[in-house]
């Protein structure tokens, strides 16, 4: 199985860059399981990323969120139809938009999940807050179990 992990956010704005760290952890978990994995990190999701994901069966998007999730993170399935089109700009170009574009332009829609981690502060700094780091570790632990079940089922 080939997995593609995308971590994005602005690493100069504290917890906005949480996706970068989380994506590395997620990719490591997948790689250790023996599956093939590719890691992509970026400032924000962009349309041309669909050229990179071609041929992969499963995608994991790792991002920071403003939402206060009870566990500090959320793993959710993403479908092309979930996309929000009103107010769409490059900032709001999300995982569902990537899938929708892929569906329209390549005819391929991989299975995809979004792992969101609640950010604590988005000020100017390269350092994640301790709270966000803790949530990232929790998300990675949860992903380990999630991946085990998912890869066994695939």
């Amino acid at each position: 199985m080939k997995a593609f992990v995308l971590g994005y956010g602005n690493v100069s704005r504290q917890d906005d860059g949480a996706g970068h760290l989380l994506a590395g952890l997620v990719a490591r978990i997948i790689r250790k399981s023996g599956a093939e994995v590719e890691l992509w990190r970026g400032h924000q999701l962009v349309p041309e990323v669909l050229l990179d994901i071609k041929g992969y069966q499963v995608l994991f998007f790792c991002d920071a969120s403003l939402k206060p999730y009870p566990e500090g993170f959320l793993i959710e399935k993403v479908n092309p139809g979930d996309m929000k089109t009103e107010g769409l700009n490059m900032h709001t170009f999300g995982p569902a938009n990537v899938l929708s574009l892929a569906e329209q332009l390549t005819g391929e829609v991989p299975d995809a999940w979004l792992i969101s981690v609640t950010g604590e502060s988005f000020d100017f700094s390269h350092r994640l807050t301790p709270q966000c780091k803790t949530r990232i570790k929790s998300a990675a632990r949860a992903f380990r179990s999630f991946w085990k079940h998912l890869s066994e089922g695939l």
Partner: protein
Amino acid sequence: MGTVRKIEVNPITRIEGHGKITVHLDENGTVSEARFHVTQFRGFEAFTKGRDFREMPEITPRICGICPVSHHLASAKACDAILGVQITSTAHKLRELLHMGQFVQSHALSFFHLSSPDLLFGFDADPAIRNIVGVAAKFPEIATKGIMLRKFGQEIIKTLGGKKVHPWHSIPGGVNRSIKESERDSYLKEIPTMKGYVKDALELVKGYLQEHKDEVSTFAPMKTSYMGLVADGFLELYDGDIRLRGARGRIIDEFPDWAYADYIGEHVEPWSYLKFPFYRPLGYPNGSYRVGPLGRLNACDDISTPEASEELKLYRQAGEEGIVHDVLYYHYARLIEALYGVERIEQLLEDPDITGSDLRITSNELYPEGIGVIEAPRGTLIHHYKVDESGAITDVNLIVATGHNNFAMNKGVEAIAKAYIKGDDVPEGVMNRMEHLIRCYDPCLSCSTHAVGKMPLELSIVDNSGEILRKIYKD
């Protein structure tokens, strides 16, 4: 006191960063005034004080995630001036190559991803389809070309700068990396395809402008002066003199970039963090002008690459005495510049110097100030630093491209509001015309935090006592 109601459009969609439009109505429901606010404050000029000037080419690109290369290069040029060096020919060409990669990707983003949905579907189309995903569904070939063209520019940036966003390539006195022959050859192979993509987009925009002549001529009509860099009269994006051309085509002034402060002043309004630059001898607002693709193509005499030069001749047929004023022509001008960018990339890659190894000039000099001016995709970008004897920054002045167009954006928004808004009934098509007017200028209000950037669209109608009469949300 006639103003009794206020309409706010906040934030504007499909603009990099966030802005807010306020429309003031009088007691008859007629628009009396409209303002385009920039309510974000970046603070780079303040918090870089005390830092070593050599850090600035790495710090200042953080202002923006869409055109970081422009800040990177303007900053490096300012640092060169502090060191008192002229960089090598190879370093100059490599910087310009990086810059052209930036122009191509940024112009592709602006046209294909942000503006083409309005042109392809119309201003009154359902917002649910009027976006890049909608374009992909109905016009997959156009969407694919936009993606491939942007990727081409991004890959050049990544090759030279190590990464697509916030690259690190230019250093005070030169650059830190050349281009390998294998990399050069691989990009050269793609040139014909990329030219074809831009030319297809040119046909699309020319068709639109031809079919919508009435809308084009009545869409926020405005005649202004225009500013841009030129070298021997030719369009120049990396290193030239600043030229100002009047609305009737006369060259008002042309001065070296390091003398900008003698010619360009900055007006401040209390309701916006974005200043209003103006040409000092004419004062504010008479000295206001426009920059960016429309400004540059009006300011220059010609373009040095053959195919873009030919296209410029066709473009100027739409103008009065060769000067094109209609704001929707920004898209056409932008694509001519994209064609120039691809041609210039070809020229630079074919130059034997480009794979050279003479990359950096060292210097023990330390001049008290340095100025770096380049053309960013959105317009003229000025970095001005002052340093103490240890090289620590004591003062920074940044005039960003979006600022130069601030006056024009405000007047344009007001023109649209006056043309379409009567009372507090604001249909989506009208709101989108106002947004599209801003998008023509492709402003970058900075995109530092994409998570925070996910804000809903909110429209408020408020009376003069502060009571909210109506609120409309768009998720």
